[in-house]
């Protein structure tokens, strides 16, 4: 068994009641990093404060990924650099693992996949040394699979996620198990195994753990809505979206809300309601931009461009492509769509946008969104 404890170790910081720790953590996060005093920094040596700080960062990971990535990386660095003992027994490793996991999770949202993977490695390396590492290592595995999903390795996700679901079930982690089943469903959908995916989504819709988590239930409804929309069952699809809106809004998940707007816009586009579709795409684009999610912003520019071409607004469509291309190339979003990107660039340069190249690019991006 791994060596867990180092000795001698005494409690070095005064205990903080949970409420006081949360208030302090909130004030700490409300203070800009460069305005923090030594007193702020000294709080980081208090494990009760760190429990509260990690809790708040977890809560905010979806709504403010760039802030959480920055704060969590700074926290990890502070703990790594500090020579003073931190907490009791395995707590230094625990906090390092938590901070690294938060950075990994949020960098994935921000499209920085290589960096995210490194942070997940760091998290795993720390969690291996703690007491009862199983649940936290399972959380890292989940984060790794979501990263694979972002990298369009859907077959791998579909193959590996059932084992993780088993682990979560065995560990009694009901919500995490539901999230993993959701990941399974969306991966199966990408592998063109829609009927299996819909079966899982229908089960999740009835699941008690999901019912207690409005954001997840909202996402399940959006996925069901998308499926219905593809089947041209627009009334039912709209009903699903309608149920999803308040659930997602109340849970303060701007990322899920932006995804819902995209799904709605796509439903409008399928029905040839192009002005509504444009409005939905642009609203989602603004949300993703605010969240600092550059790859999603680029994808939305491509969708807007395609819709504008359908409206005969070619000049505006070119602007959208020009806005998307730098990120698509910098982030290597479509390595296998290189030819489509080159064709598209050339056609835009000649001011004769090639709709086929644009469609091909969108299809590559769609699979990785």
């Amino acid at each position, binding site marked *: 068994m791994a060596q867990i404890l180092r*000795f001698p*170790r005494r*409690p070095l910081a005064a205990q903080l009641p949970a409420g006081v720790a949360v208030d302090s953590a909130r004030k700490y996060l409300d203070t800009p990093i460069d305005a923090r005093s030594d007193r702020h920094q000294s709080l980081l040596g208090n494990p009760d404060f760190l429990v509260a700080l990690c809790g708040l960062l977890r809560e905010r990971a979806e709504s403010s990924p760039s802030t959480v990535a920055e704060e969590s990386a700074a926290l990890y660095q502070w703990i790594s650099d500090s020579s003073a003992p931190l907490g009791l027994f395995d*707590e230094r490793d625990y906090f390092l693992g938590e901070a690294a996991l938060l950075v990994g999770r949020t960098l994935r949202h921000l499209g920085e996949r290589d960096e995210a993977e490194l942070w997940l490695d760091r998290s795993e390396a720390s969690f291996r040394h703690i007491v009862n590492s199983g649940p936290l290592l399972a*959380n890292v595995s989940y984060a790794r699979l979501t990263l694979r999903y972002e990298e369009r390795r859907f077959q791998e996700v579909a193959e590996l996620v059932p084992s993780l679901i088993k682990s979560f079930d065995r560990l009694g982690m009901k919500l995490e198990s539901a999230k993993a089943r959701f990941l399974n469903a969306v991966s199966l959908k990408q592998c063109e195994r829609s009927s299996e995916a819909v079966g899982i989504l229908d089960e999740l819709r009835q699941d008690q753990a999901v019912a207690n988590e409005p954001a997840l239930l909202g996402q399940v409804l959006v996925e069901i809505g998308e499926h219905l929309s593809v089947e041209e069952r627009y009334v039912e699809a709209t009903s699903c979206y309608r149920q999803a809106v308040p659930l997602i809004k109340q849970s303060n998940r701007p990322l899920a809300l932006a995804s819902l707007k995209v799904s709605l816009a796509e439903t409008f586009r399928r029905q040839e309601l192009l002005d509504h579709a444009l409005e939905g795409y642009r609203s989602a684009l603004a949300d993703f931009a605010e969240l600092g999610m550059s790859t999603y912003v680029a994808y939305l520019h491509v969708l807007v461009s395609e819709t504008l071409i359908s409206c005969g607004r070619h000049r505006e469509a070119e602007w959208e492509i020009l806005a998307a291309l730098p990120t698509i190339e910098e982030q290597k979003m479509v390595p296998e769509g290189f030819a489509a990107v080159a064709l598209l660039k050339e056609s835009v340069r000649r001011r004769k946008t090639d709709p086929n190249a644009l469609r091909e690019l969108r299809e590559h991006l769609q699979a990785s969104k």
Partner: protein
Amino acid sequence: MEISDESAPPVRQEDPFEKEIRAVFQDTLGLIHIALVAHYGLEETEATELEKDLYVWFVRFCMRPGNRSPKESRPFLLVACCQFAREYQRYVVGTGVRGTDEKLSRILDREPAEVARDFSTSLELLSYRINRDA
């Protein structure tokens, strides 16, 4: 508007979760003490100090994401107890403050998780007896 006329600061109500953690710890304390004193050979005062640390650690441990209820986390409390006791005694023996004997050497050679498993079995037997007699 309602204005409070309290002159003293309000007494902090213990969170129900913390209350549960405290109860589980109290229930396990006897076994922890036996492990520390009778098996790992700690002095009474040393054991008492260690128990305080263990409690503080256990409260935060139970708050970690994914951990089960405090009651179900009891085996991990025993693992931490044995780990810490072993590290402590190794430190004390290693610095020459205290000598060792065969019994202490034997338990220090064993993996703390294994020792804790034995204690967990005792705990299960104990709770079985309590439940049966209740």
